[in-house]
């Protein structure tokens, strides 16, 4: 294996500059994705960049907008009571050791059948804060995910999102073959704000139904302005597949994923426990 250079950076600014200046450098966060590639002898990068900057571990829950540093682990999410609505998401990822290591910033880059946290953040309409070169910029998560294969030279600093509209407004379910741990067959997350008993501004995101987490925009439109009743739920479930493109993998075939995605969405919207 070719020797890899390790750049230990004191600050995020230094790490972002290293990523900007060296095109074949890879950022090393929790290790659960990048170290796999290192162990396999991946030769597409020649340097690892890491930083112990504490700002990446910040969790801000006091304002109307939550801010989570990119280095926040799933275990840290589970330890924060204000983030209770995200606990089912964090719990559905890995075993305890992976949750002690893996970070929410890394999850934005996780390929299917991983990336469940990114699906949840997509449903929450999160914003991704990046530093590239010497400037910070903010990108809607949907745009970030669509372009992530080309997002070299920048460091994800944090994600932010508005507090969900209510305790029932954010919903999540993950279908996996191995419980309590396992890669996703289908993951679905939804944010369903209501106004006067009608859904206003629904966001539905699927995981493992494409290379990245994807929005089910037709299903969102099917709910818009309607009460969350059986007719609206059926309309959304029937429209679930539009724009999704699952692939075959060891966990499920693309055909199977298409068969069950609408069923999972129907159960999520109906509030079924299992």
């Amino acid at each position, binding site marked *: 294996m070719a020797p890899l250079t390790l750049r230990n950076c004191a600050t995020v600014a230094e790490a972002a500059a290293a990523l900007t200046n060296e095109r074949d450098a890879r950022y090393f966060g929790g*290790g659960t994705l990048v170290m796999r590639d290192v162990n396999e002898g991946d030769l597409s990068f020649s340097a*690892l960049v890491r930083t112990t900057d504490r700002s990446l571990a910040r969790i801000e829950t006091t304002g109307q907008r939550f801010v989570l540093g990119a280095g926040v682990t799933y275990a840290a999410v589970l330890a924060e009571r204000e983030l209770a609505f995200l606990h089912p998401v964090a719990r559905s990822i890995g075993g*305890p*050791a992976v949750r002690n290591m893996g970070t929410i910033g890394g999850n934005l880059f996780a390929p299917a059948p991983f990336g469940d946290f990114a699906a949840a953040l997509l449903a929450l309409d999160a914003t991704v804060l990046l530093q590239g070169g010497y400037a910070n910029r903010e990108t809607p998560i949907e745009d970030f995910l669509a372009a992530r294969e080309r997002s070299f030279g920048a460091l994800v600093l944090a994600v932010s999102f508005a507090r969900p509209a209510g305790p029932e407004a954010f919903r999540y379910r993950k279908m996996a073959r191995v419980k309590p741990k396992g890669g996703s067959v289908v993951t679905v997350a939804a944010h369903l704000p209501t106004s006067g008993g009608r859904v206003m501004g629904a966001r539905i995101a699927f995981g493992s139904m494409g290379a990245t987490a994807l929005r089910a925009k037709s299903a969102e439109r099917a709910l818009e302005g309607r009460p969350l009743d059986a007719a609206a739920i059926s309309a959304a479930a029937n429209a679930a597949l539009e724009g999704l493109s699952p692939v075959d993998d060891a966990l499920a075939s693309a055909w199977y994923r298409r068969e069950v995605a609408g069923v999972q969405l129907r159960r999520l919207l109906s509030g079924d426990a299992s």
Partner: protein
Amino acid sequence: MMIPLQFRHNGRDVALFVDGATNLLTALREQLGDTTPKFGCGQGGCGACTVLIDGASHLSCLTLAASVEGRSVETLESLKDGPRLHPLQKAFMDHFAAQCGYCTPGMLMAAKALLDRNPNPTRTQVVEAISGNICRCTGYEAIIEAVLDAAQQHRASA
């Protein structure tokens, strides 16, 4: 490029030089001669390499050795006290919780991480605690029983 690294290994301070991309499992096994953590998959899928870093379970094959600078690493080697086995080790023997034994070091460390934090776990909590550790022999039941028994023994002796 070799970099210097110092950390606490099973209560003992160690200093070594590692290649920048070396994982902790390789440093422990090949440089410190501690072969208790096992190489299973190198992908985070099996848990055979589980160690505790500052008391929390981590997969040593996915941990950059350089990232444990100044921290405390515990492996299975630290579990027994001289000839005295840890209650978890004794319970694994009593319940026939090891067959081929390859997953056992990781299972024991995952179970220790649980009992250190929660000395009175439910069965569900035990299942959750070892959910990242794969065993292809036992069917898990004997392991779950052993962890619950070790917790009970430990409480009885405390």
